[in-house]
């Protein structure tokens, strides 16, 4: 028994040394916080307002082909898109449309050309000639579109032709 008493300090010392190596405390640790966030807004609709229709004047046709530039021609149509301020939207539209003769037989194939600008400046508008185009509303939640196109009138029958331009706009 006397020897057992003597070794107790050794046992304790060994345990202390062992624990010192095994549990050295928190070392080499670093913590950082990052913020995860999302701002939810009330659902906001998109309003499309036609400010001016396209005017097709046969007299302006060259060799029966009528070209209306959406950037430079006064006869181009004009639309205003209203949405959430400064938000980004994806535009896509059908670039060909059959115009129906409302006073007789026949159709005309109209190929649309569209330009757009966040400010009301037709001459500075950019052609939206891709299938999809990403644009941004201005600080008033507005974006302007001008519609021109090309139509072959050489085989057009007399009459009044009508059609609707269809454009899809969605927030991204």
């Amino acid at each position, binding site marked *: 028994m006397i020897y057992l008493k003597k070794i107790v300090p050794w*046992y304790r010392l060994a345990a202390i040394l062992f624990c010192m190596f095994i549990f050295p405390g928190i*070392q*080499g*640790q*670093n*913590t950082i916080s990052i913020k995860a*966030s999302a701002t*939810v*807004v009330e659902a906001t609709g998109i309003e499309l307002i036609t400010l001016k229709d396209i005017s097709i004047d046969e007299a302006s046709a060259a060799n029966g082909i009528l070209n209306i530039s959406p950037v430079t021609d006064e006869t181009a149509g004009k639309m205003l898109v209203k949405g959430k301020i400064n938000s980004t939207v994806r535009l896509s539209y059908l670039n060909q449309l059959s115009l129906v003769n409302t006073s007789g037989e026949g159709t005309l194939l109209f190929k649309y050309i569209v330009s757009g600008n966040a400010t009301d400046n037709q001459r500075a508008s950019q052609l939206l000639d891709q299938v999809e185009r990403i644009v941004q509303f201005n600080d008033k939640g507005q974006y302007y579109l001008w519609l021109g196109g090309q139509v072959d009138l050489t085989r057009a029958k007399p009459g009044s032709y009508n059609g609707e331009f269809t454009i899809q706009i969605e*927030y991204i």
Partner: protein
Amino acid sequence: MHFKFKNHFSAVAILLFILFTCGGAQAQHISFGTWAGGDIVITPGIPGDLNFNNKTQVITPGWNQSVTISLHDAEAAVLAIEGTEYYDVTVTIDAPPTLDLDASNKIPVKIHFAYSNLNPANVTVAKTQAIEVPVGFNSATFPILRRTNGPPGPPPTPPSAGYTPPRKTAYLFIYGTLGPVGNVDAGAYEGTVNVTVEYSKYN
């Protein structure tokens, strides 16, 4: 005779203590991290936060509304972890289950993370080499610098006066899915993701 018995008894006592403490077979790790100093530096990259509006600008209420920021999206948060290249680090992510506006307006969020430790030249390269931590895990252990191939080299030179071990930077990417947004009020929803990085000790 007495002297020999005393030594023998001491050795048995220490051995028993170790056996009880270790509690069975262990993998063969050399826990260099046990002696590591507190020299891990975490630096937020660009972006340093996870903002779901950076992926989808207009988030509106609705049960079919959700936004996913993936690892390879530019909107994934980036953290740079600088440390001694031959140490393993354990990264622990403590993420909330929801982003909250208030007690009654919460949007579920699932946070994922990936690491990149091939000594990438920049964040872009790091992302292409990143390893995604499987869904359901909130921590991962990896070396600051991953060895690409070949047998392990000799043990590293320990730090000493006049010698600083080489340091490298590993990258951490944090991303995830928000939603379904549900029928919640409009407002700024927030949550805090705590990222802890420490040298691994394999205790």
